[in-house]
């Protein structure tokens, strides 16, 4: 099993979610996060004092998938999240040792 983590622009989240549902993904976790990539942050002005705000609001999606689905899920997310402008985010995949469904106690791919 793999954990696919995507950090995307907040306004792309609905499209990514819809695309994942169409692909057949049952569950996912969404978190509001702050961060920056190569684009860094932006500047705000308060009574003439300019503040460099290093982090921008982003949304993190986490999806657990079976090994063979991982590349496709990554493609689905990338396609749905892409605007082509700077700050579109990142997607990465890491191996997962165990998954347990809390309600039934099922383990492994059955728990996905």
């Amino acid at each position: 099993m793999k954990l696919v983590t995507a950090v995307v622009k907040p306004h792309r989240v609905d499209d990514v979610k819809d695309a994942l549902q169409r692909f057949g993904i049952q569950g996912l976790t969404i978190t509001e996060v702050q961060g920056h990539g190569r684009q860094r942050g932006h500047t705000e002005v308060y009574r003439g004092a300019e503040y460099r705000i290093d982090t921008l609001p982003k949304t993190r999606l986490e999806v657990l998938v079976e090994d063979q689905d991982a590349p496709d899920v990554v493609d689905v997310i990338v396609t749905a999240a892409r605007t082509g402008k700077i700050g579109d985010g990142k997607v990465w995949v890491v191996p997962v040792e165990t998954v347990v469904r809390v309600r039934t106690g099922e383990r492994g791919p059955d728990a996905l």
Partner: protein
Amino acid sequence: MNAADTAFVLISAALVMLMTPGLAFFYGGMVRVKSALNMLMMSFVSLGIVTVLWVLFGYSLAFGDDIGAGLLGNLDHIGLKGIRPETLTGGKEGIPVFAFALFQLMFAVITPALMSGALADRVKFSAWCLFITLWVSVVYFPVAHWVWQPGGWLFKLKVIDFAGGTAVHINAGVGALAALLVVGKRIGFRKDPMRPHSLPLVMLGAGLLWFGWFGFNAGSALAANGTAATMALNTQIATGAAMLGWLAYERVRHGAFTTLGAASGAVAGLVAITPSGAAVNAFGALLIGVVAGAVCSWAVGLKFRLGYDDSLDVIGVHLVGGLLGTLLVGLLATDGVGGAVQLGRQAAGAFAVLAYSFTLSWLLATLVDKVIGFRAAEDDEIAGLDRAFHAETAYDHSAAGGTTALRSAPPTPHEAPHHKKVDA
């Protein structure tokens, strides 16, 4: 008794009362979220402290008969002694002294509260309460006497200060400067971003101040007459113009029309028109407003160049705006009053209040610092003053409707949720 005047002054008193919570919102929105409640409370508590002091001796010191030399009122009216419901100001056409005393009380409440913005995020709440108790007693009550009591020496000097350019704004502005020099800078000043946590709250506060200021300025006529109407109109004109002045400066200098700039410009205009009363005409008000907006917008940047941490720009707005208004009315006063002589009187009044207030405020702040310590502990300042002094947080940010917050900090009655005793 003049019923119309009485009704007008009572309503004006209520309008001015609302300015202090308005100021609390104006300042409260400008600080970081961790000390938002503390900022609100620094203003709000003045409604309690100064009210009590006013009844005990404040009214008497400010508006009692002069003890001589125009410096202070006598103690004839401590505990509001000798004033009855039927006691009137002036002659038979006056208003009840109680209405006047209530109206003037609201000025005494908001003036120390104005200083709180300069000390945001870093002082002990108990020290602040002690400081404003001493400050209104030793600085505000005498200065109000100088300016507004017919026996006061600045009154007799014919300084025009209709609603409090010297007694309120210069006084509080320079008092704030003295206090912040004693207290020092916030940790992280000029290094960490210290963004306002809620600009909508700032805008709400500015709106309430603008609204209440009609009572502050027009009400100072103490009569429902043409002077009050002129002052109400001048207030609106100067405030609108100052907002545009600030925004224009900001657009040219920083490239944006900011919300904070609009709110700040409005307050700068309100401050600057305060001393004028009906002494200027509509064009005078317009000029005072535009100049105040643009100059204050520039003045708030001085703290970064000079390295003092006037956190919410009490000096840049109230001291600079108060000085501008007090001096400009010397030039712009109509009916042949304005000119070099009047400008000289205005400058003398402003300088007297500057010197007195700065010296006494510095001494009082130093006294508070020596006796109980003015400054909050470093870890409390970093963690935020709300939890340290008020055992509360301004907003519940937990996504799960508060349940996670409850789990991490179970409610334990009689025990503060802080690791140590709440040392306010």
